[in-house]
Each structure stands twice: as structure tokens, then as C-alpha cells.
């Protein structure tokens, strides 16, 4: 009879373990999130190139561009006059999904420590857009929209809108306090206006190649706290 230890070692070769899943792709897709913010230089150039096309497509009433600023996949553009306000309450967020499905479809999704009341998935932006909602679609308390960097958004702001640069975990962000209109390119490359127009307080930042936009009735301090808790 061999030693107990060697019998146990041999037993190890006969014990049933579930097959090891290939973890490399999922791990790999999550690696860049904190470290890849050195990359945005390339993204920023792409945004500028795309931006020229998009700005030209904006109707004449807004063509007077005063200044602009790029944050991730979003370009903030100060214009003389905002386009007329789209109807409020027509929030096109997409399809309501479970957190598990949201993470499966958008593995890059970041979630703040406070769990949202609902999560929506929309294909209106290339690469997908995820919206995390606190409150109800009729009474939105807070809305966090996330998409990947290859998408392109343009935010139009009025001359009096205050834009403040902030830092979130080493990444650049912007805090805006006023009304704005969001313009984005849809999957077919068409320039569209976002129908959502919330209270006008927005925090915009990026994490890796994910661009995040938090909107609602919150203070800058609250917004930064939520942003810094996103994982």
C-alpha cells in the first residue's frame, strides 16, 4: 500500500473538477479600464476629424462656434444660441435590461456604488449605449449614460454656461451647470439630437475608452462622489 500522501496525489487526477473556462478574453477586456487613459490622444484626434463633419451638419442657427473642449468621445461646443428645446419627457433610453444582461452585452460598463433603479441598453450609438437610471423614466432623479470612445457626441452649450474642469481618478472631466443640447451620430452616421434634456447639471468624464455622462439634480460634490465610486 503506497503512502497516504501519494495516494491522495493520485486521487487528485481522478477528482472531478468542472472544466476551467477560458478567462483570458474577459480579463483582457477589463484590463485597460484604469490604465489606458494614456491612449485618448489618438481618440481626441479622431474626434476632431469627425467633429468637423458633424459641426458642419449642425443647422445654421448654431453655427457660431465660440469654443470647444473634448472629453473622451464628447466634444463640448459653446455656441451663440441653443436650438429650440426638444419635448421633455420623451426619454429614449432603449430597452430595459437586468444588470447581468447589461454587463454581458457591455462588459466595459462601470457601475457606481449606489445601484440604479433601472438599466437600459440602446443601439443608437455604434458600440452601444447603456443608461443607468435612478427614479423612473417619468421622473428622472439621476441618469448616467455610458458609451465607448469610438462613438462621437457633441454637447452644445450657451455662452453663459459655466464649464469647470475636474479630475476623476486621474482622468479629465468637465462639470457643466446649465442647459445643453446633445448631438450624436447614429449607427448610420447621421447627426441627431438627443431628445433628453434634463435639469442641466452634468458631469462628463472618461475612464479608459468609456465616456460617462451623469445628469440630474445634484451638486458638484455629489456628482464627483458618484463618479469616483464607479467600478
Amino acid at each position, binding site marked *: *500500500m*503506497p503512502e497516504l500522501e501519494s495516494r491522495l496525489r493520485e486521487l487528485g487526477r481522478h477528482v*472531478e473538477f*468542472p472544466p476551467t473556462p477560458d478567462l483570458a478574453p474577459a*480579463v483582457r477586456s477589463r484590463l485597460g479600464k484604469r490604465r489606458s487613459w494614456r491612449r485618448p490622444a489618438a481618440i481626441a484626434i479622431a474626434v476632431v476629424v469627425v467633429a468637423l463633419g458633424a459641426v458642419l451638419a449642425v443647422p445654421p442657427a448654431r453655427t457660431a462656434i465660440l469654443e470647444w473642449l473634448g472629453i473622451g468621445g464628447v466634444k463640448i461646443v459653446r455656441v451663440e444660441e441653443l436650438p429650440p428645446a426638444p419635448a421633455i419627457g420623451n426619454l429614449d433610453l432603449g430597452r430595459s435590461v437586468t444588470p447581468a444582461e447589461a454587463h454581458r452585452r457591455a462588459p466595459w460598463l462601470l457601475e457606481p456604488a449606489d445601484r440604479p433603479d433601472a438599466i437600459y441598453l440602446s443601439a443608437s450609438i455604434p458600440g452601444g449605449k447603456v443608461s443607468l437610471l435612478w427614479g423612473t423614466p417619468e421622473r428622472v432623479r439621476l441618469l448616467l449614460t455610458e458609451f465607448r470612445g469610438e462613438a462621437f457626441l457633441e454637447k452644445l452649450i450657451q455662452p453663459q454656461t459655466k464649464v469647470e474642469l475636474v479630475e476623476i481618478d486621474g482622468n479629465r472631466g468637465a462639470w457643466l451647470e446649465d442647459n445643453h443640447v446633445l448631438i450624436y451620430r447614429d449607427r448610420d452616421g447621421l447627426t441627431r439630437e438627443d431628445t433628453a434634456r434634463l435639469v442641466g447639471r452634468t458631469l462628463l468624464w472618461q475612464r479608459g475608452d468609456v465616456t460617462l455622462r451623469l445628469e440630474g439634480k445634484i451638486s458638484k460634490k455629489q456628482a464627483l462622489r458618484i463618479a469616483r465610486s464607479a467600478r
Partner: protein
Amino acid sequence: MVVSRPPTEEELVERAKRGDEDAYEELVRAHQGIAFRTAYLVAGNAADAEDAAQEGFVKAYRALGRFRAGSPFRPWLLQIVANEARNRRRSAGRRAALALRAAAEETSGGAAPSPEGALLGAEERNRLLAALNALREEERLVISCRYLLELSEEETAAALGVRRGTVKSRTSRALARLRVELGDSDA
């Protein structure tokens, strides 16, 4: 003449530290088997084990800056993965302990038996498994890590979150109990 050789683990870790994701992917592929199995023993089910192993690899990557150059990677990694596995087990409440089972028998015409393959008959294996499953959980875990997964004492200590001395004493206690259970006279 320059002979190209595969990079050593130390080189891969150094490259990963500098943000080389290809190098880290190689480390993941090299260690995912042992990481998943360790997590499976600790968490008690495959879904939590996969989750814990994935989370562990991501956390380890982010913590590479604190990894001491030149020290072995595996115990450090297993500590992080097993910690994730324990957290999942804890948050799921106290489930029934994992019962180890023997794999379905290969047909006799299958792969060549390992050199030691003839040592244990199916009946003997089942007796050994039953005795192992009857151990207290902390003892079953230490035996499973040390012998079934063939982790070193250092790796077992890291995986179970205990000191090396505890691994030693727990192992000898568990072996003694197994010998009694099996009626072995070589104790």
C-alpha cells in the same frame, strides 16, 4: 548566435507591470487552471469560482505595482483569487460543503495510464474520497490544496489565508484522521 526562448515568468510579470497586456494575458493563460480549481474548492461551485478567478486576475493586474519583483507569482495570485472566492461564499451564506466526486471512468482502451495509474483501483479511490469528504471543512480544504491540487505549503497558506505553521499542523492532523478512518496501519 541569438537563441530565442520563451520569456520567463519574472520577465512576463515585469512587462505586465509596465502595462504590457499581452504579457499579462500569457500569465492568465498559464495560471487560470490552478486559479479556477482553487477558487472552486473554496467557493464550492463553478459559477462563483469563475467569477472569483476573473475578478482575482483583474485585481492582481491592478495591484502589480505592489508585487515584489523576483518573488513567485503563483502564491501571490492564489491569495487574491481565493480571497475573492471566500467573499463570494460568505455573501452566499453557509452552503453545504462541496462534495468531491470521482470523474467518470475512462473506457479501458483510453489514454495510457500514468506511471502511478495502477496504484489505485476504483474501489480504493472511492473509499479515499468518502473519507476525505467526511473531514471537517478546514481539514478537507488543506488536504485538497496540498495533495489534490499539489499546491506548496506556501501556496496553500496564501490560498486559505492562514499561516504556514497552521497549514503544517492542520495537514498532519487531517492525515492522521484519514489514516484512522481508512484503517491504515502506517500512521
